[in-house]
């Protein structure tokens, strides 16, 4: 049974939860995803390197990131690093943890996407005089992007929801705001439902963006 005051409670919570979304969840997602993409590209290129030690460093990195819980990675950076003398605030701690995590997972997406571009493309680029970096930037990555969008969207959408873990290290994001609003009233069901609604809307918007981007990148492919 919901209490009589539920509609009012929902109305009163919309503001604070929106604030948690706009000031916490969204910037945390955007910063971590952007950083994660850069890291993913670096790790993927290292993994594809013909220099064995370089490729092994990348392999180990991906293995550690994928083989340990994200919550634990978050705790190591926020609660663990201070004992090594590095104290970092909650929000930057969360950004670092999520960036490192996305970087590990997304590097495999980037690697697969790069490998999906036929070898002849890089050869043709070489014959018109391009070096490694130019070939990557002008020829390989634009084609790899098309392949990477669906799995990368998965990574981004997962990240949106994973940022809720940051509530455990005092980051005032969406879930934390819902907890704060629910605590004095014990209306956990209602407030968590509102929070769920917010997450879902963000992910819906991202799904639309994904479809739009896929259509755009498909324009040079025979249908």
């Amino acid at each position, binding site marked *: 049974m919901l209490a009589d005051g539920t509609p009012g409670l929902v109305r009163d919570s919309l503001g604070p939860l929106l604030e948690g979304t706009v000031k916490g969840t969204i910037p945390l997602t955007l910063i971590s995803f952007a950083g994660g993409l850069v890291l993913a590209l670096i790790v993927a290129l290292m993994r594809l390197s013909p220099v064995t030690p370089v490729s092994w460093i990348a392999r180990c990195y991906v293995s550690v990131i994928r083989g340990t819980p994200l919550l634990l990675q978050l705790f190591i950076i926020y609660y663990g690093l201070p004992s090594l003398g590095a104290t970092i605030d909650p929000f930057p701690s969360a950004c670092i943890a999520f960036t490192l995590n996305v970087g590990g997972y997304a590097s495999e997406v980037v690697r697969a996407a790069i490998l999906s571009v*036929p070898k*002849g*493309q890089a*050869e*043709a*680029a*070489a*014959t*018109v*005089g*391009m*070096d490694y970096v*130019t070939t990557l930037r*002008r*020829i390989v990555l*634009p*084609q790899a992007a*098309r392949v990477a969008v669906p799995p990368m969207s998965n990574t981004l959408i997962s990240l949106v929801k994973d940022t809720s873990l940051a509530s455990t290290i005092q980051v005032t994001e969406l879930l934390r705001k819902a907890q704060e609003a629910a605590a004095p009233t014990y209306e956990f069901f209602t407030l968590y439902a509102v929070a769920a609604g917010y997450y879902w809307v963000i992910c819906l918007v991202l799904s639309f963006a994904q479809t739009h981007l896929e259509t755009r990148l498909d*324009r*040079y*492919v*025979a249908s």
Partner: protein
Amino acid sequence: MTGTSPLLQARAITKSFGDNRVLRGVDLTVAPGTVTVLIGPSGSGKTTVLRSLNALETPDSGLVRIGDVSVDFSQPFSRKVRRREAARLRAQSGMVFQSHNLFPHLSVLANVTEGPIVVQRRPKEEARTEALALLDRVGLADKADQFPYQLSGGQQQRVGIARALAIRPRLMLFDEPTSALDPELVGEVLAVMKDLATEGWTMVVVTHEMRFARQVADQVAFMDGGVIVEQGPPAAVLQEPAQERTRRFLHRIIDPI
């Protein structure tokens, strides 16, 4: 062959892929303004020779010289030096691939201007004008704004030729340019190549088109088992081959069933 010094010289090129010795010492000399056709059974190494001439394949040993750029692959290069030397050699020749390898995400025009603008840093307008002239030369000026997938196989291959010409190479390399095409599209590509030969381009062509070899080539080299078995003017190599292996190959090509 005339008395002028050769434009291209390959000496004692060897190359192995694992245990497979693909090239066992190939020598090739090409005079400026001539067309050399490489023929031979599949696996004979003719494509590897062609790819060695622009360092898409790094020979294990041997020397390639085009004009005044010479790379001795017998030297123990570091990775970095090898890359630089390969780039220097590569800039001398334009390459046309069997599977065209056009950049699918770029328009036809952008495919042709990519090298001149991005790599050679030539002024955009100048590069565009020149690219349009090249597209006109291969009969595709009206396709400049299309994407490669909108063209037929023969048209794609002609764009490939224009793209290779656009970097202003000293000679043109063709790796089985018509092998992936439907039979009725072969002619339009060969016609463009014939025009280039007439204009005095130096060309090295790997092909199975014997009529092209007979009509256009100045020299034909027959390869088998990683060596050039026989070479000379087409009339000699194709009509009266001295080697039994050449005779058997030509017989199979001309009379396959």
